[in-house]
């Protein structure tokens, strides 16, 4: 068996701080938006990157959780530069996080992971399943040249069009719709129960969008694995560049524990386990062994 080497990646800009909660509000069913003051991270972080968050001075849950960048917030009179994450209340960590109030603290380290590459495209098609929509507001801002991210600020050539195909269990789980509309993102919604938008799969929306637009596309995708797999297959059939952002469970987020491995195709054939936190979370879809 030949095996390629593990990543040489290092989280170049990562810092660890105890950050003050500036805002923690419910924005949809079981869905909250958390804003924390962390100037260094806010300046450096890119769309598709994530941070690890942990409740300060609490050992239960013990391990931090990765949360994707939702948005950065520039300095205000009250607080320094901040980042926002959006989370779905699911288990041990997120249910406690939802109880935090303003001026309490979390431990945070980041920015982590590779994020989305700023490859130019005429038409950026973002495909989101449930809470997997979180990385896409910042990405849409970049591709519509509304905002720049990173240190130094990175340039992304403006897309003619940015589309979001967004599927949720039910209407009340949709979050951030206003923000996407406000940005001018072409929005297509689907629900499992038919309470809003197309009654069916988000991949149906994607097929329609690809049929109806003649611009060259690039697809980015984040959500449950079966959905990402289906999107990857559609992209492959149509020979469209496609990147997926994986949500593999992690323990450290920084490359030292080898928990978050995913099967990645090797150049010479075969596959190897790669750490999602340092080689991802964004991968070229054809690289993934589903």
């Amino acid at each position: 068996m030949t095996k390629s080497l593990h990543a040489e990646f290092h989280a170049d800009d990562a810092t660890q701080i105890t950050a003050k909660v500036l805002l923690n509000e419910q924005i949809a069913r079981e869905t909250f938006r958390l804003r924390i003051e962390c100037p260094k991270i806010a300046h450096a972080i890119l769309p598709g990157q994530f941070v690890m968050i942990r409740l300060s001075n609490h050992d239960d849950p013990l391990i931090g959780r990765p949360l994707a960048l939702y948005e950065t917030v520039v300095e205000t009179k009250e607080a320094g530069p901040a980042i926002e994450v959006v989370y779905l209340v699911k288990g041990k960590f997120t249910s406690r996080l939802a109880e935090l109030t303003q001026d309490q603290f979390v431990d945070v380290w980041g920015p982590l992971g590779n994020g989305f590459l700023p490859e130019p495209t005429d038409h950026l098609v973002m495909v989101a399943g449930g809470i997997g929509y979180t990385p896409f507001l910042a990405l849409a801002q970049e591709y519509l040249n509304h905002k720049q991210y990173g240190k130094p600020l990175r340039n992304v050539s403006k897309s003619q069009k940015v589309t979001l195909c967004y599927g949720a269990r039910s209407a009340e789980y949709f979050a951030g719709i206003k923000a996407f509309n406000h940005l001018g993102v072409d929005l297509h919604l689907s629900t499992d129960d038919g309470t809003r938008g197309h009654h069916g799969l988000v991949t149906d929306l994607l097929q329609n969008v690809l049929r109806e637009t003649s611009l060259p596309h690039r697809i980015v995708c984040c959500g449950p694995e079966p959905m990402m797999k289906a999107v990857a297959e559609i992209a492959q059939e149509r020979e469209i560049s496609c990147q997926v952002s994986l949500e593999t469970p992690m323990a450290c987020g920084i490359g030292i524990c080898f928990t978050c491995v995913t099967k990645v195709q090797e150049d010479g054939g075969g596959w190897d386990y790669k750490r999602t936190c340092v080689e991802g979370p964004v991968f070229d879809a054809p690289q993934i062994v589903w």
Partner: protein
Amino acid sequence: MNARPNSVDLSVQLGRLQLPNPILVASGTFGYAREMEHIVDLSRLGGVIPKTITREPRQGNSPWRTVETTGGLLNSIGLDNDGLDAFVEHHLPYLADMPCPLIVSVAGRTHDEFVSMVTILEKFSGIDAIELNVSCPNVSHGIDFASDAEMCGRLISDIRHACSFPILAKLTPNVTNISKIAEAAAAAGADAICVINTLLGMVVNWRMRRPMLGNGMGGLSGPAIKPVALRCVYQVAKAVDIPVVGIGGIASIDDAMEFFVAGATAVQIGTANYYDPTVSVKIVEALPDALQEVGAKKMQEVVGSLRLEGSLGDARDSSATMLADG
């Protein structure tokens, strides 16, 4: 702060290995150090032990590889690594250049493989010591050297003859009598005994009727295992004349001090690196004050200073007040 931290001597000696301070980072919990170089000032550490290497590449176990437990973490990574050749080519140049000591952790499937790995490593410079991982619970087929005193002793003795590295033997707590194994390792020429590796454990989902880990069972680490680790350090330190390195659930200066007092000459930080990446440096920074608090000027003055006459519950003398003030 009234005390001058640099009036305290933090250096320690593990047999032939000298360390600038007693705070190390444990194998498998600090990657290959490079991942951490931007978040941790490596020059502050007593030493780094990169993830255990094997002779051949190992893909490791299938996910899930870790699962959180109450106060702990259960893992079955399965020694995922690229093998010795890739290690020396790819990671060693960086590691050998780090501004702190490097202790390379190795695991062989057989006696001869262990010896040959160490022999190969000896050709490279920049390695300050070898840690023998004779205790990984996640590798089937491998012989569990640390559960058989005689086999463990023979292995260490042969490695001692085959190389000039200081040798640290990392033992498993998953045995009936850890002191016996430690005695054999010490008699065979180990420079220090490291205890403990993880405790074999299991987590299941009863609704699915499935274990949570891909590998079924795994090794428990983190704060949950600290009392067990402390007990092992205490027992081993009593049983052998060589230094003991304490590992298990250390996440704060208080944790570290408990291990020193119980008999550890140095400690390794493991799981805490995952949930508090800068924890190791925080402990290094807090150490001088902690030593001065008990009037110690060097590490030797606290190592093994545990007093057994009377428990804290009985203690009414002034020496207990520092602990009893809560």
